């Protein structure tokens, strides 16, 4: 199987790269031979040869640079996701590129790739951060993680998560992220797939078309339980 870590050197804040390491590991433990390609700005990309595509988070300036490059791959990426229905995970601010418009909060608007109907607005000089607990209908257990952003997203149609604690798409939203077929876009930062071994297993199952091997994830599961417990305590205190 082939995995693509796209914009690996410019969209890689907060240890994002480890999502690809985790995916490689679970596929290998499930008996697959796995290679990882790391590509970046200016590289030619043949999406059709990949089984999993990952893009991590970057600074606001880096995102603008990457958007101009990714724009050239719009049709091919759309084919990968919408026609082939293959698995892609975009974490942090990277999935903001897929929307219609990215506003800077002062009236300047950059066009997004316009693959999905949502808009992004920069919240000037305000960093929005929080630990989060999310739920979704395709996983029995909640997701844990951290959001660190400076934007609000509106008009997402196909939501990925429901917010149980912490930040959502915008101040009024109880939803977070985007799901279109097997494309997953979320503002969760860092090694989301390591912090949530059940989410990793779910994505691996989509890629493999069968149940992945998960018996090796002992510390992963224990770590997840500790964090969920800590966050749940916190959640009760806030209420």
């Amino acid at each position, binding site marked *: 199987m082939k995995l693509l870590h796209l914009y690996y050197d410019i969209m890689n804040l*907060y240890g994002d790269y480890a999502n690809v390491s985790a995916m490689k590991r679970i596929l290998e433990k499930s008996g697959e031979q796995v290679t990882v390609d790391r590509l970046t700005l200016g590289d030619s990309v043949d999406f059709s040869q990949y089984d999993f595509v990952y893009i991590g988070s970057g600074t606001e300036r880096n995102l603008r640079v990457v958007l101009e490059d990714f724009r050239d791959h719009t049709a091919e990426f759309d084919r990968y996701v919408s026609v082939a229905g293959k698995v892609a995970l975009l974490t942090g601010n990277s999935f903001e590129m897929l929307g219609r418009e990215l506003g800077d909060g002062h009236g300047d608007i950059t066009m997004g790739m316009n693959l999905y109907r949502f808009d992004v607005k920069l919240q000037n000089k305000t*960093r929005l951060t929080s630990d989060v607990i999310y739920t979704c209908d395709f996983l029995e257990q909640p997701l844990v*993680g*951290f959001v660190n952003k400076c934007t609000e997203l509106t008009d997402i149609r196909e939501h990925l998560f429901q917010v149980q604690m912490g930040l959502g798409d915008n101040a009024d939203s109880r939803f977070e992220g985007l799901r279109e077929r097997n494309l997953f876009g979320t503002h969760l930062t860092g090694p989301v797939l390591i912090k949530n071994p059940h989410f990793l297993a779910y994505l691996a199952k989509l890629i493999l078309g069968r149940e992945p091997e998960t018996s090796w994830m002992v510390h*992963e599961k224990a*770590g997840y339980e*500790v964090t969920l417990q800590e966050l749940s305590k916190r959640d009760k205190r806030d209420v």
Partner: protein
Amino acid sequence: MKKTLTILICKLLRFALKLIGKGSSKPGQVALKLCPDILSRIELPRYIIAVTGSNGKTSTVEMIAHILTQNGKSVAWNKEGSNQIEGVTTLVLDSATLGGRVKADILLIESDERFARYTFRYIRPTHYVITNLYRDQLTRNGHPEWVYDALLDSITDGTQLILNADDPLVSSFGEDRDNVVRFGADKLSSDTEELVSVYNDGAYCPVCKSPMVYSTHHYNHIGHYRCTACGYHRRDTQYTITAVDLDRGVMTIDGKYEITLALKSLYNIYNILAAYTVASIVGIDGAKIAADMNHYVLKNGRVITFTLGKRHGTMLTSKHENSISYDQSLRVAAAHKEGCDVLIIVDAVSRKYFTSDVSWLYDIDFEMLGHPNIHEIVLAGKYVNDLAVRFSYTDIPQEKIRLFSDIDSAADYLNSDRSEYLYVITCFSDKGKFLVKVKED
């Protein structure tokens, strides 16, 4: 009248709170309420030196104060590292006469990166040191460029910028500006040609976002860089580390002053150089500065030596969520030639606020502990599972690693017949939990 009253109240509060061992930000907070523009009503000394950056602020400020005081200058400074506007207000008013004049030759301010723009609206630094901008506390700070933008708002005309030339983002503050002084290191014997780091924050030019190349790396993305497109490059330095020998623990500044290091880390040498630069600008003779820095042991409690049963060790404290400072601590342990054990503790992620986020573990280059100098690795604390998973993504053999979910058991386990030196690497919030188990030297 209002001014005098505010100063008086601030002083009294400061005195009272000090007696009961309370922090230094409250008095300033009250003063700012009573008289919001109090800082602009104070007569300040000729030298107002500010220090900011992700790492090394507290250490650098302490060393500057030490050198200046040793050389007969009176210095008002925030010893407790209370570095937001309230703490700075306390410092200024507490060192002022009731008439509103700061009674010192030099006002020395450690400033938080995010709050500098508020503090310096009223107190304009004459000299402004920026040490570095690293990934640091993502839970509050976002990322280095975000902090860069916040700091940009704090720089006013008429201030001399004193910048780390080897940090590409920091040095870019000085582009198209007059009155800039830079400090940095020549190519050093400890340098590497290739990047040694989990990630590369020097991959792209901070000015034009084209790829950058390095002729040498001092550590992580700190080194000699050049943009392949716009020509932005590492500038020449006025104050320079010309050589360093970490084995012997000796650094040389400007080719002539040798300083013996109490802590053999590259980090430490940058802090010393920054302090040297400031003291030189204030007019202290280089030889005197070098003498004051020789064998200087920081008093801020970030490095503590101890005895645990028959074993000796050093605790290196840094913020968990700062991978470059963490890498430095790992580097110190890996360089311990006689062989050592390492204890890593993550029991609370942060001292100042709640978070359960452990993303930062993946920005740390734990692979360094695979060095043969490291004999045993003990991981401990509430987040021991997360540590175990992180280590499973290194090439370090599992047999070398022991896990304990509580710090007590880890300390008991380490209190053994083993003779290896022990390094304990942790953050401020967890250090006390281990120190109760040892005898501090």
